[in-house]
């Protein structure tokens, strides 16, 4: 049984990191109606900035700089491409984010090369004991930090003016505009929040026991994508549930790889998408998505 509980805890840690990324997808979708495919490159950017600065500023300082830089980059993308283009169809903007992703990723890959960069995280390779379960310290930290950040996010979403503006605007843009909601500001903040969360996710995706940041780290964001979609794309709570589901599935598939050999190797990397498809077959709008289907 030790094995199952270890796997479950690892899955939970993975899921909470995915949740940080998936929330970013959801916030941006709610605010701008756009699927932000540039999220992967933003995550890579966050990781890269932290890796570059942790020697000079220490880990904590580097994380702060990384989060701010990534939030700023996301804001710049919003201002330049999403808002700046004016009257363009939402699906065009969605495709545009793929272009932004390619540009940013290419530049970062050029800088990273084939190295594996350490982010200087303090957890090392130590494992913590909880009863007779061994889990890497970084995984525990991931769960704790994610719970705190997601908690703050949900409180902000529920009780602040920004949160109310977001929820109102995602339901009815015109009615929200008529209430005097400053849509531009709400959108900009949404992108910045999403960027910041992606940078934090980068820390835990590259912390021990993972070897470090490399050129493919951004691709992990693509696993948070099915989490957001199966949660309903416009539901923050749905994204949270979806992320935990995807994390657990992946960890279980990896843990019982030997029993799953019939499906071929590396089932765990396919598992999130299988879960997404199964959920969407039953609930086409995702677990908690709204019924409206007119958006991209």
């Amino acid at each position, binding site marked *: 049984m030790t094995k199952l509980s270890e796997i479950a805890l690892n899955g939970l840690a993975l899921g909470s990191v995915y949740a940080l990324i998936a929330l970013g997808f959801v916030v941006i979708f709610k605010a701008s109606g756009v699927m932000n495919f540039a999220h992967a490159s933003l995550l890579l950017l966050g990781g890269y900035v932290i890796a570059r600065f942790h020697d000079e500023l220490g880990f904590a300082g580097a994380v702060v700089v990384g989060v701010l830089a990534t939030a700023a980059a996301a804001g710049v993308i919003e201002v330049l491409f999403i808002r700046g283009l004016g*009257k363009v169809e939402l699906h065009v903007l969605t495709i545009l984010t793929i272009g932004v992703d390619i540009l940013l990723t290419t530049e970062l890959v050029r800088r990273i090369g084939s190295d594996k960069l350490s982010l200087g995280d303090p957890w090392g390779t130590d494992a913590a004991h909880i009863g007779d379960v061994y889990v890497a310290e970084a995984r525990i930290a991931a769960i704790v930090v994610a719970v705190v950040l997601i908690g703050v996010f949900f409180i902000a979403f529920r009780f602040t003016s920004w949160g109310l503006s977001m929820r109102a605007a995602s339901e009815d843009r015109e009615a929200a505009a*008529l209430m*005097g*909601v400053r849509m531009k500001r709400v959108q900009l903040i949404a992108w910045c929040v999403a960027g910041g969360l992606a940078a934090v996710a980068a820390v835990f995706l590259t912390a021990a026991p993972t070897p470090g940041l490399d050129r493919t780290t951004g691709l992990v964001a693509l696993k948070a994508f099915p989490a957001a979609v199966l949660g309903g794309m416009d539901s923050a709570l749905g994204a949270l549930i979806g992320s935990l589901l995807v994390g657990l599935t992946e960890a279980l598939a990896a843990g019982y790889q030997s029993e799953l050999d019939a499906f071929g190797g590396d089932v765990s990397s396919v598992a999130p998408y299988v879960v997404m498809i199964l959920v969407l077959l039953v609930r086409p709008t995702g677990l908690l998505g709204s019924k409206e289907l007119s958006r991209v």
Partner: protein
Amino acid sequence: MARSENGPPHSGGDALRVDRLHVAYGRSVQALRGVTVTVPASGIVTVLGANGAGKSTLLRAISGTLFLHHGAIEGGTVSYGGRTLNGRDSAAAVRAGIVQVPEGRRVFARLSVAENLQAGLLGTGGRRSARAREARDRVLELFPVLAEREHQRAGLLSGGEQQMLAIGRALMAGPRLLLLDEPSLGLAPRMVGRIAGVVREIARQGTAVLLVEQNAAVALDLADTAYVLDVGEVRLTGPAGDLARTDEVRRLYLGEHDAQAVDGAAREPAAATAGTAPARAAAPLRRWRG
């Protein structure tokens, strides 16, 4: 707060002036062609017209939401209390004291009634100020049913209650000019009467109202001044009572000409065979056209 940065709040001349306004959607669709409308600092002004006459376009131009419909002002001005509103967004209109209740109610269905009212404060800056509490008390006094339903989702309210919520939400911002887009649309006759009473009360408390309606009978009864829009132009204007008596308005918007003809035809045989079927059939027919 947000209100004070917009100059003197009550300079007496806080009228809305729409002057020779031209609005187009896309590159070619002319929705308004030189429309001039004035709404004084108090009282009710109504704009009548058939579908596509440009009524909603006029409201969008005033509230700064044309861009959401890919429309733009091509000429003329919209000004309020002497300040130009052209090219400003809806947030600026709200800060200037103009709030619109959208057509079809458009409450935030998944938010609670209380949250919908809170959303009405988003354009004013302070959600927890004393003024906000006052506004909330005033709205709940006007619509006691909203107090009972405070924690329900707005989507679960009846059509009439949603219309009350939509009006209440707009009043939360403490507007000095309220724009109402077809408040009677899709409501039961009894509810139309209640909403009309509410509009009258709002105007009595000192908020100017610009009312766009297809239900001309109700609108002309409420309003002091009326405009009739036809294919993007002002066709008639004048005191609402006078306008209600003109042949054109009676025929086109009140449907009285036809109704009287039916009445007249029905009355003669009705005298002989008191209360027969044709006379009864004529009554609902008249209301439908109204």
